[in-house]
């Protein structure tokens, strides 16, 4: 007997526990990639159940299907074009009305579906009781109550899903009946539409055309331009009746119905006293206490990650260095041996000693906080400040990631709504001192001049981020978007989901960064073997010696720093023949060197991430800009510092 293949898509709002259900269903058989040609994440997994191989797709969390964002477009296209056997609409029972608004739109896509009414425990604690029977009856689809985080109801959900597919029940869910004046016009257009074959069902196409959906208008124009002008005319008529944009009218009516259904099926008893999660929300978003709490949380994360990371990084480094003799035995100490050890292996080691000790724990903690709901509170508190550089509160989260490593931070900017914002945020992030730069700041300035000077550099970095961010914001055309963000209730994170997300981020880092680190590392090794390091150092001397007032060999150190920033310090020690930098560098030279290293180029892995997100042109532009900026800054700093300070 051959196994039958089925496909099921999970669809719903953000933060409703979709990915937790996805994890319960698919376990370890998951694959996270990107939607073809898009920067949106695609989570796919398989499971075997009752002789079926079931493909599960976790669609992005969205609030609507009307193409405000790429996520919405991807979702509805997947449902309409790929036609999964079933859609499971995951719904947050504690915010039923808004979730039903999305359910009604899914129904308009005329796809077979069932509902997972999730977080019923949370709804209960808010005093909301929902009658499943009534909801099933009104919607005409099966509704399965679940508490995904505890795994409750997930098996029933799967069983029901397969049962539905086997029955192959002809779903003609009409969804919403709008007002007569709208229904009549929907009818006219859907009659016109049904003569040709469209991507979406005729009724849905008609409704979207009335709302001025750009994607569907484009498609309709190709098939029959008259439909678009007819829809435009009819939409104007509706606008005249209601004195409101047609899309607002339709959205309002849909929400009216969602609200009516919600009121019919739920009974609410307001709890006597506020729950713990409400108190927690109030204090963490408090206009005074919110900030010290945030500062304490952020600082303790940094402290924990860097203390732990430092130890682990050293241990790993020592462990791998122990392999060197083995490699030399196998490959000999000749050019091949040197290229393999000094190039390939050291590149890989460099990648591992940054990914495991710093990135993994950092991500783990941040995903934990995100899943709990705290990051959206931070975004709320920081929105105002981020606006000054043309971003909104949500960008603060990847920016924080940048302190660990710029690479995942740049990729993390996908949470921003527009490409312009992603570019702005990524640019700002490349200026954030990552773990590797922290090693230099603390190891050179902090250790040899004083920790207060290291702190000055951090503060200065913040000022630079702010200033350059603001300039970039003014320079890049386009309007800033505003923060429109749900702050869903605090909840206990699902550890397995958090761990998986961390794992996939690590995987992504390895895929993007490792190849370039290794290639770059081999290239630099080759230059070294060919004996042209010193000539290059000399070529750079007008910059390093004349302009920056540094020893000529620092040019070589800076070249190595492209691979990985803390290599500049390691190389400096090797080239100068000492780790006691106070003997060979003046305090001013140390500050200048550190300043330049902080800004002079995003490391090669970050450049790779930028290329992946925006293409070569923009990535190289950012790189070139930062080189010029850092060198100029270093020279200016040298002159100011020699004039004003006497360390």
């Amino acid at each position, binding site marked *: 007997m051959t196994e039958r293949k089925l496909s099921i898509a999970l669809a719903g709002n953000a933060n409703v526990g979709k990915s937790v259900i996805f994890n319960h269903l698919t376990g370890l058989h998951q694959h996270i990639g990107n939607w073809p040609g898009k920067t949106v994440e695609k989570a796919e997994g398989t499971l075997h159940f009752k002789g079926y191989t079931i493909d599960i797709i976790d669609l992005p969390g969205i*609030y*609507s299907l*009307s193409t*405000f964002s790429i996520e919405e477009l991807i979702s509805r296209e997947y449902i309409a074009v790929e036609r999964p056997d079933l859609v499971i609409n995951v719904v947050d029972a*504690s*915010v*039923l*009305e*808004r979730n039903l*608004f999305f359910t009604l739109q899914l129904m308009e896509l005329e796809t077979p579906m069932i509902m997972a009414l999730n977080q019923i425990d949370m709804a209960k604690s808010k005093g909301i009781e929902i009658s499943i029977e009534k909801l099933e009856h009104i919607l005409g689809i099966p509704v399965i109550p679940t508490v995904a985080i505890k795994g409750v109801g997930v098996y029933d959900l799967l069983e029901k899903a397969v049962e539905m597919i086997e029955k192959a029940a002809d779903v003609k869910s009409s969804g919403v009946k709008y007002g007569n004046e709208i229904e009549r016009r929907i009818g006219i257009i859907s009659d016109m539409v049904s003569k040709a074959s469209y991507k979406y069902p005729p009724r849905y196409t008609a409704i979207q055309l009335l709302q*001025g959906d*750009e994607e569907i208008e484009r498609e309709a124009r190709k098939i029959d331009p008259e439909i678009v002008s007819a829809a435009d005319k009819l939409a104007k008529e509706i606008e005249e009746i209601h004195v*409101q*944009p047609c*899309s*607002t009218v339709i*959205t*309002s009516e849909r*929400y009216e119905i969602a*609200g009516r259904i*919600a009121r019919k099926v739920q009974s609410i008893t307001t709890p006597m006293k506020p729950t713990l999660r409400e108190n927690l*929300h109030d204090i963490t*978003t408090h*206009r*005074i206490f*919110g900030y010290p709490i945030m500062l304490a949380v952020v600082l303790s994360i940094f402290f924990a990650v860097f203390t732990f990371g430092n130890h682990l990084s050293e241990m790993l480094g020592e462990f791998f260095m122990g392999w060197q003799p083995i490699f030399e035995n196998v490959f000999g100490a000749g050019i091949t041996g040197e290229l393999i050890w000094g190039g390939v292996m050291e590149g890989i080691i460099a990648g591992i000693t940054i990914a495991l000790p710093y990135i993994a724990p950092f991500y783990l903690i941040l995903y934990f906080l995100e899943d709990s709901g705290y990051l*959206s509170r931070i*975004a*709320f*508190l920081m*929105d*105002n400040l981020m*606006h000054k550089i043309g971003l*909104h*509160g949500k960008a603060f989260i990847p920016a924080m990631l940048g302190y660990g490593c710029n690479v995942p931070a740049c990729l993390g900017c996908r949470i921003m709504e527009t490409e312009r914002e992603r570019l702005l945020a990524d640019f700002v992030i490349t200026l954030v001192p990552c773990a590797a730069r922290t090693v230099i700041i603390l190891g050179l300035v902090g250790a040899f001049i004083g920790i207060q000077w290291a702190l000055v550099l951090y503060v200065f970095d913040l000022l630079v981020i702010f200033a350059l961010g603001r300039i970039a914001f003014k320079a890049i055309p386009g*309007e*800033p*978007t*505003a*923060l*429109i*963000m*749900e*702050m*869903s*209730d605090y909840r206990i994170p699902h550890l397995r989901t958090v761990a998986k997300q961390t794992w996939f981020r690590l995987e992504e880092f390895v895929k993007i960064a490792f190849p370039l680190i290794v290639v770059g590392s081999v290239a630099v090794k080759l230059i070294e073997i060919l004996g042209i390091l010193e000539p290059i150092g000399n070529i750079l001397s007008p910059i390093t010696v004349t302009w920056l007032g540094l020893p000529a060999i620092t040019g070589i150190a800076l070249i190595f720093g492209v691979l990985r920033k803390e290599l500049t310090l390691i190389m400096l020690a090797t080239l100068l023949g000492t780790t006691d930098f106070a003997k060979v560098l003046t305090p001013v030279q140390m500050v200048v060197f550190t300043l330049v290293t902080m800004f002079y180029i995003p490391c090669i892995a970050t450049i790779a991430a930028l290329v992946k997100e925006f293409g070569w042109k923009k990535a190289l532009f950012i790189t070139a800009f930062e080189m010029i900026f850092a060198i100029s800054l270093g020279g200016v700093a040298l002159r100011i510092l020699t004039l004003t300070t006497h360390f």
Partner: protein
Amino acid sequence: MEKRASEELEVPLTALRDGQIGKVTSIKTGHGRGRGRGWGFEKRLNDMGLTPGTRVTVVKSAPFHGPLEILVRGSRLALGRGIAERIYVEMER
């Protein structure tokens, strides 16, 4: 006369004090470039539940003219001040 009075009560969401409730009357998308960015905002706000006639509770705002925390249709939203200023409501007393 009466109509006038109700018009005078139409204020931007940001004019509400903490804990006050307003009923959405309109969303002014500003630059009036048809279905450009402004249209996207209005649609997005509509989709999040802010349709005309909806009751909105302003919970609080973040300091230094920060974003607003509002309750709408049982969900808690954070709205940037810039966008909140464009949402007009009728104050409920």
